[in-house]
């Protein structure tokens, strides 16, 4: 499943578009500690986090993650978006909390992987 389809299916709002790459369960990581996120970030990774602020900008600038999903309809930091667009990193906001967002993403990707 491609990232755009995943976000659409889960009503996740898109604020910055990146490369529409395929995503699998193994490429999704959720965490609220920068070191955890750094450790699991790579090209093709979708990070899910409650964190906001300049450190997300650094994640985008420094380690080239594919997508960052914020939670609970949090307002997206505006300074994040130009850098995200430039680096082709998705910035999206889920209407749900961390646990529920992860669960829904897992469910959709699991179903997709069973079909394929």
């Amino acid at each position, binding site marked *: 499943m491609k990232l755009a389809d995943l976000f659409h299916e889960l009503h996740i709002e898109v604020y910055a578009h990146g490369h*529409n*790459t395929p995503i699998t369960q193994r490429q999704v990581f959720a965490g*609220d500690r*920068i070191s955890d996120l750094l450790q699991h*970030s790579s090209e093709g990774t979708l990070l899910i986090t409650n964190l906001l602020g300049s450190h997300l900008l650094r994640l985008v600038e420094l380690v080239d993650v594919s997508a960052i999903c914020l939670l609970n309809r949090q307002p997206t930091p505006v300074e994040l978006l130009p850098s995200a667009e430039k680096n082709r990193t998705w910035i999206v906001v889920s209407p749900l909390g961390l646990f529920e967002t992860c669960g829904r993403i897992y469910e959709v990707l699991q179903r997709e992987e069973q079909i394929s």
Partner: protein
Amino acid sequence: MTRFSYSIMGGDYENGGSASRAVKAQLQRAGVDPATIRRAMIACYEAEMNVVIHARQGQLHAEIEDGLLRVAIEDQGPGIADINLAMQEGYSTADAQAREHGFGAGLGLPNIRRNSEQLQIESVVGQGTTVTFAVRLKSAQLYGNVRHSIRIDAASCQQCHSCVRACPTQAIRAFHRAPEILSYRCIDCTECIAHCPSQALHMASTTWDVRAPRTTRLVVPPEFLAQFYGRHTPQQVHQELVQMGWQDIVLTNSWLEALRYATHELAEQQQFIQPLLTPVCPAVMNLIAWRYPALLAYLTPYQTIWETISATYSAERITCVVMCPAQQSLLTAPEHSQVETISAIDLRDELLSRLPDESPITSLPANRKHTHPSSNQELTITGVQAVMAVLDALECGELSDVAMLELWACSQGCFGTPLALGEGHILNYRWQLRSQASVVLAGVRSRQQPLQPRTGMRLDDDMQQAVVKLARIDQLRESLPGFDCAECGAPSCAALAEDIVLGRARLENCRHQKKNAEEHA
């Protein structure tokens, strides 16, 4: 050697990471590959944030030498009482403010250790700490950093090695579960994609999202439209594209014809070395820059149509339909950041889902002449093997009777890309039937800097070592059977010998060699 230093302020969470960002810019400038940069950035950022979190101030010193990035971060802070304890995962002395910002996982130093080499920590309690580490940049230093847009889906790979055999530049190795691409050799042609029976090789994803079109102008190559002409009318396709949100559909042939016209004018002047090579196909340009650098002088001093189109619409976001990985790599370069790209496959599938199943074919324009002046000294070659044969001939000075050369990596030019639906000759025929009698010429744009040769592969930074490795390769090649069967995962025995010496493969990868050894045992 390149050296640089940056200041870091304790407690400045807003600007924390700026020094690492500056190091990243230096590494990118040096042509280091993205995976190595990512490792270096994790180590740098963790070390820099340790200063922000724990110290009053500090400095980051970095130097690039002998294929190594060496970083020293010294701070004036409280120091570390027990370094062994600090190295344990989960141990942290970060305060509440740091934890609020998402730090304090106790993974900082372990992350540095994981992503670097030669980590050393010196600390005096009450005075400060110095953390030094290195990141090896060897691969990028030796092979150069070349972006390409061919991707491999390991799960779909049947390990048939068709791609290994098909690649005209021997850029693919399959020693492990899935093939790997040696980026310094890849020219972004589509041979591997065309030969893969399981679609494990494909073009990198594009930025387009059907539900959120963000541009009103779509740039379309005729080769894309020709796919529909057996079943749908041009009007139907145009109408659907407008329905999808693009109010202005621009065809690329205006730029292509302009480029041909300008090249023809140059050829007429006879002031340039001939035959003139028209820069029509980015994959062929990659090939020339990598394998035939002496022929770069034959390229006309114009940009490709994609670069010209991007410059024409530099003030607005546009969407370009890309027919191959070479176009995708070109348009996703940072200087074309206002350009969105759509894979020809994705847009075709979307259009086919919207268009009616079958439609009558409309009447065709009767007059189908080309707009650029024709010349009997123009030679157009398509298909990468034929292109290489012609470039070999050109290198040997055998084309003195040709004034202009137009070379395309795919058979029938972009009509033959494996990303198109249908056979290239048929698509070309259908387009010629339906194309307008004349095309309004768009502009051409001069290339500011001549195209540079690609960094070739060096066996070693140290010339003495390189000579030793070369001798070892020759020796190994003699001992291999010379079947060039590609069963080992390398395209030829010579390539396997080189891979063994460079540590990418082992002698046991050759099944014939292994069998011989077992028989003699």
